[in-house]
């Protein structure tokens, strides 16, 4: 059987673990070649995927790193069709404890990186008149929690950027959408108290703690040909948590 992502080159950031790893594995299963970007060596994910994976160790919050990533994609494949901006950080701090450094770092990793990815990869997508950006936001923007003002600013920013970018690149056959997970069981959330996670997923229509694999079907869809009339949208994948229309 033919596969939905045959011939595609897909770049996933934060692919070393958690949600990013699950996405990369799924896209490879659908026959894409995947470029794994992570600040830490994404070797474990690469080993799970095999020969369809190419690893790049890079900090996505730095513009010059994106120049290097784009050059590698171009030199290795001559193209890049799909970008999933997943790398993100979520340090909590209530406003009285929120430092300028944490604020800037959160915005840099969660939002600046999305701009840099577009700056460096839209030109490669334009060559083939086809492209897909899926940027990970968060359902928490509709269900605020204390200690997350910087995080919510970054994740609301993701949606604003998605809408703006969708306007700029539509004529090149490039779509741009956001996906909003609820709290997900990942290495990044494993140290949070279980009762905290439960207090979130108990509010969902689907009452269980989300896993990275819950995200892969929606991201496969949005990066496929099937979704080519969908752009500038924000899709919650959160078991029905999002409450504000």
């Amino acid at each position, binding site marked *: 059987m033919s596969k939905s992502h045959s011939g595609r080159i897909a770049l996933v950031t934060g692919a070393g673990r958690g949600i990013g790893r699950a996405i990369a594995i799924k896209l490879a299963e659908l026959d894409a070649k995947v470029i794994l970007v992570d600040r830490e060596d994404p070797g474990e994910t690469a080993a799970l995927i095999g020969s369809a994976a190419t690893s790049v160790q890079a900090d996505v919050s730095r513009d010059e790193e994106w120049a290097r990533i784009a050059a590698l994609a171009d030199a290795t494949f001559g193209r890049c069709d799909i970008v999933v901006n997943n790398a993100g950080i979520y340090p909590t701090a209530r406003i009285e404890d929120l430092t300028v450094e944490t604020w800037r770092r959160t915005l840099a990793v969660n939002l600046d990186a999305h701009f840099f990815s577009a700056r460096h990869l839209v030109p490669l997508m334009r060559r083939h008149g086809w492209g897909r950006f899926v940027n990970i936001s968060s359902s928490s923007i509709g269900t605020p929690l204390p200690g997350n003002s910087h995080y919510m600013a970054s994740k609301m920013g993701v949606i604003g950027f998605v809408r703006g970018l969708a306007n700029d690149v539509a004529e090149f056959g490039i779509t741009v959408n956001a996906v909003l997970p609820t709290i997900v069981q990942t290495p990044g959330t494993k140290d949070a108290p279980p009762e905290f996670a439960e207090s979130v997923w108990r509010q969902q*229509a689907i009452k269980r703690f989300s896993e990275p694999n819950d995200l892969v079907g929606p991201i496969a869809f949005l990066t496929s040909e099937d*979704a080519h009339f969908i752009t500038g949208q924000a899709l919650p994948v959160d078991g029905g948590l999002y409450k504000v229309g």
Partner: protein
Amino acid sequence: MSTTELLSRGPVEGRLTGKVALVTGVGSGQGREVALLFAEAGAIVAGCDINPEGLKGTAALAAARDVKLDLAQVDASDEAKVASWVDDVAARHGGVDILYNNGAGAHFVPFGDMTLSQWHDTLRLELDTVFIPSKAVWPYLIARGGGSIVNIASIAGMMGGEVIGSAGAAAHATGKGGVISFTRQLATEGGVHGIRVNAISPGPIVTPASEAVVAASPDFRKLFEGMPLLKRSGRPVDVAYAGLFLASDESAYITGANLTVDGGATAKTGISVLS
């Protein structure tokens, strides 16, 4: 433009294998394309429409595409008829997994001229057509341990639209906004039963219904064709593939969502932050 034109696309085979799907309004436009696509994806598809001519056309297309459709003439706003249709389909196919509420209608009249009876009739055509089939399948979905309901709303339920010529949308927009709210609430109530409920809000989609309006007014055509960011109008298949995704287990963790399939029309005009 043929409504069966295939623009995508990825493989569909096997994506709904073993599922029994009910689709309303399969005699034309989007509903027809959805019924054919779901059948190609392996579902047993039962479709209804009020229009017998439309059903004949759909049956002919099914034969041409070599898929089986179980078709019936039923008005989705008629409680008794829908109940017996759903009971009959469930009995013959052993249950129900998917309901796709697509068939709807509206009176498009500027507000100043709109009568109370046009308002009521539009809400019946837009909302009763969603409530009644949902109610009829609900016990079957519970008995099955879950299922997926997809409601067709519209970007008209998310944003105001200019009145072009004589086509005001106050009643239609209210009905479609209601479909989105109904979806969110039903998702919340369905969670404990494993029932997912999502909406799709299509933007401008070229169908017999929209073509009639577009053909009658150059101004409307300009508005319709100018809405998407992407340089084309939508096709029934664009919505059908989104429907396939939401009906299938690929979207198992999505419920209460409103997936906008509008070529970016809402991102262009900038409405609420989320659907």
